[in-house]
C-alpha cells in the first residue's frame, strides 16, 4: 500500500480518537450539553461500546497476523481471549485470597490475593497466550490447512470449558466456574488509578494498546518475518524451496497472534471489570474472523475498519436501530437476533463476491482470484 494512503488512514483514525476522547471526557460530564445530543450519543455511540470495539480491534489485528499474513485459518481465537482474561482475573484481584502477593499493584498492601500491576499483567497475559499458541501450534502446524482449522476449533472449545468447569479441578478452584472472577484492581496510570467507569481514560489506554498492535503489525509486515509469512500464504512449497523455515515462521505467526489475543483478553477483563466463563463462546472467534474478512485480510487499516464496524453493529447499531424502528412503526421485531444472519451473510457474500475485503491489500487480490479464469472455462465447458 502506498505511503500516502497509509498516512491518510492513520490521520483519519487519529482525528476520530481525539474527537471521541473530547466527547467522552469533557462533553459527557458537562452540564451545558443539550439532552438531545446526550441521549443521541448514549443511544448510538455509548462509551462502553466504543471501548469494547477497541478490544475487538486489538484481537482482530492479532487474528489478522495469523489469517491475513500467514494464511492459516484459526477458528479458536477465543481461547486466547479467555486465557488473557483469566490472567487478569488471577493476577489483578482478590481471587487467590490465601496468598498475599503484591508486585507494583494498585491496591493497599494489606489486601489479600495476587496484585500485579496492570501493565505487568498485560505482558504476562500476552506471554502466556503466546506460549499456548506455540503449544497448540507445534504439533499441528504440519497438518493440512483445513485440519489446522479444526484443531484450533477444538482448542477454542476446550479452553473455555476448562474455565467453565474449573471451580473444582481435583478440589482446587481454578476459575470460580460460572460465577466468574469479579472486581479487578484499577489500572495505575501515573497520576490516578483508573477504575471501571473512567471511560475516557480507559479509552485512551485501549487506543494505546491498539496502536501498539498496529505498530507491531506494520513493522513485522515490512520485515523479514512478514515477508516470509506472505511467501507462505502465497505458496507454501515455493516458500520452503526458497529457504523459508516453514515451522518456525508459522509458529511465529501463531505466537504473535496469540500475544495480541492475550492483550485483548486482559483489556476486555478490565473493561467489564471481571471474567465470566460463559462469555467466551465460539461465536466470538467467528465474529473476529468476519471482521478480518470484511475489512480485508492482511490490510491493517481494513481490519481495523471491519472490527469497528462489525462490533459497533453487534453491540450498538442493531439494538439501537431496532429500538428506533420498533418505536417508530410500533412493531416488535427482535433485531439483535439478526446478528447471526448478518455475520453469516458477511462471511458468505464477501467470499463469493469480494474475497479481498472492503479495503483490499493489492497483493492478496491477485492470489485470491487465481483460478477464477479457469473456473469460468470449466463452467463454459459444462454448459
Amino acid at each position, binding site marked *: 500500500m502506498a505511503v500516502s494512503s497509509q498516512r491518510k488512514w492513520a490521520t483519519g483514525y487519529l482525528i476520530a480518537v481525539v474527537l471521541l476522547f473530547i466527547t467522552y471526557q469533557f462533553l459527557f460530564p458537562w452540564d451545558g450539553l443539550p439532552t438531545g445530543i446526550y441521549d443521541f450519543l448514549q443511544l448510538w455511540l455509548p462509551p462502553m461500546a466504543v471501548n469494547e470495539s477497541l478490544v475487538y480491534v486489538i484481537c482482530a489485528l492479532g487474528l489478522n497476523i495469523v*489469517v491475513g499474513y500467514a*494464511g492459516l*485459518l484459526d*477458528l479458536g481465537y477465543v481461547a486466547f481471549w479467555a486465557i488473557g482474561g483469566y490472567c487478569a482475573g488471577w493476577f489483578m484481584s482478590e481471587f487467590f485470597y490465601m496468598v498475599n502477593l503484591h508486585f507494583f499493584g494498585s491496591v493497599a498492601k494489606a489486601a489479600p490475593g495476587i496484585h500485579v500491576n496492570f501493565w505487568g499483567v498485560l505482558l504476562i497475559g500476552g506471554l502466556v497466550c503466546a506460549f499456548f499458541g506455540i503449544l497448540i501450534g507445534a*504439533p*499441528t502446524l*504440519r*497438518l*493440512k*490447512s*483445513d*485440519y489446522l*482449522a*479444526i*484443531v484450533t*476449533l*477444538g*482448542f477454542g*472449545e*476446550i479452553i473455555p*470449558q*476448562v474455565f467453565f*468447569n474449573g471451580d473444582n479441578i481435583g478440589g482446587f478452584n481454578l476459575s470460580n466456574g460460572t460465577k466468574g472472577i469479579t472486581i479487578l484492581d484499577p489500572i495505575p496510570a501515573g497520576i490516578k488509578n483508573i477504575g471501571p467507569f473512567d471511560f475516557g481514560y480507559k479509552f485512551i489506554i485501549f487506543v494505546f494498546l491498539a496502536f501498539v498492535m498496529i505498530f507491531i503489525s506494520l513493522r513485522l509486515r515490512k520485515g523479514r518475518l512478514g515477508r516470509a509469512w506472505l511467501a507462505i500464504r502465497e505458496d*507454501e*512449497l515455493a516458500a*520452503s524451496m526458497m529457504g523459508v523455515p*516453514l515451522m518456525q515462521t508459522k509458529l511465529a505467526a501463531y505466537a504473535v497472534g496469540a500475544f495480541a489475543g492475550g492483550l485483548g483478553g486482559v483489556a476486555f477483563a478490565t473493561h467489564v471489570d471481571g471474567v465470566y466463563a460463559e462469555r467466551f463462546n*465460539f461465536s466470538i472467534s*467467528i465474529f473476529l*474472523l*468476519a471482521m478480518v*474478512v470484511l475489512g480485508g485480510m492482511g490490510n491493517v487499516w481494513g481490519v481495523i475498519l471491519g472490527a469497528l464496524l462489525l462490533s459497533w453493529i453487534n453491540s450498538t447499531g442493531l439494538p439501537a436501530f431496532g429500538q428506533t424502528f420498533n418505536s417508530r412503526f410500533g412493531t416488535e421485531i427482535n433485531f439483535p*437476533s*439478526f446478528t*447471526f*444472519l448478518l*455475520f*453469516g*451473510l*458477511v*462471511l*458468505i457474500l464477501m*467470499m*463469493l463476491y469480494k*474475497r479481498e475485503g472492503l479495503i483490499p491489500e493489492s497483493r492478496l487480490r491477485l*492470489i*485470491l482470484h*487465481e*483460478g*477464477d479464469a*479457469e*473456473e469460468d472455462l*470449466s463452467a463454459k*465447458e*459444462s454448459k
Partner: protein
Amino acid sequence: MKATVEAKKFTGTRGQVRRKRIELSGAAIIGLLLVVWLGANLIKAPTQFAQVTVLGLRNGLLYALIALGYTLVYGIIELINFAHGDLFMLGALFSSYFITIWFHQENSNLAGWVTFLLALIAAMLFCGTINVLIERLAYRKLRRAPKLAPLITAVGMSFLLQFIGIKWNGSTPRQWPTVIPHGEYVWFGVIISQVTIILILVAAPLLTLLTFVVNKTKRGKAMRATAQDQDAARLMGIDVNKTISFTFAIGGALAGAAGLLYQQSVGTTNYNLGFQLGLIAFTSAVLGGIGNLNGAVLGALLIGVVQGLNDGLPIALGQRWSQTVVFTILILILVLKPAGLLGKATTEKV
C-alpha cells in the same frame, strides 16, 4: 510441506521413521491408560459398564449418520462442511414440526407410526434439497478458489442456518411429544430401550443402502472417480457437477434422518444443537479417517461409546467434561495419526 513418498522396501526417510515412532509410542501410552481405566471400571460396576456401552452405541449410531455427511463431502471436494451439523439441526426442527404441528401426532399408535415414516422420507428430502442448494449457491463457485475461501464460506453458512434455527425454534430449547414408544426390555440386568431398537432398525438399512450405492452402482463409481481426480473424471464423460450435487444430496438426506431420530429419541430441539453434535460427528469422521465411509461409522461408534463411558462410569470425569474429552480425542488423533484409524496416509496435493 514435505511430500512423503510411499515407501516399499526401505523403512522411510528419517522423518517418517520418527513419525512412526511417535505414533507407536503415543498409541501405546493411550492404549495402556485406556485398559487401566476400563479395567478398573469393569471390576467395580460390570452391569453399569454394559449399560453405558449400550447407550453409547446408540448415540454412536446417530453420530454415524451425521459423520457420513462430513466424510462424503470431504471425500469428494476436500471441504469441511461446517454447515452440516446445522443442517442436522434443521432436520430435527423439520421433523418436530412435521409430526407435531402439521400432522398433530402425539402418541405412539398406528397413525403415529405412519407419520413417523412419512416424516423420515420428508426430512431426508428436505435436508437433501437444502444441502444441494447450499452447494449450488455457495460452494460451487469457490471450487477452484484458495482453500481458505470455501472454509470461511462454510462457517458463514453454518451461521446462516443457525439463524434460521433461531427464527424457527426460538432461542430457548423446546420440548416435543414423541410418537415412538419409550418402553424398555431388561436383558441380563441391562436395560435396552425400544428407542434403541428403533434407532438400529432405521439406521442400519440406511447405512447398508449407502454402502451399496457408493460401491455397487454407476453413480457410486462416478462419485469415487470424481473424488480421485475431477478433471480426469470429466474427461471420462462423468458429469462432475451432477455427481457432486448427488453426494451433497445423500449427505443431507442422512443428516435429515439423523435429525428425525434425534428429535424422536430425545424430544428436545435447540438452535445450537447442530454445533455441538456436528463437532462430535466431525471428530468421529476424523477418528475413522476422513473420506472413508466405514471409518466414519467405526469412529462414530467409538466416540459414542467413549462418551457414554465417560458420562456414565463411576470412575470417570463425568458429563460436564464430555465435550472436552471428545475434543481432546480429536486433537490427539490429528496430532498422532492425522490419517485416522482406517484412512490412508495422505499427502498435501501440490
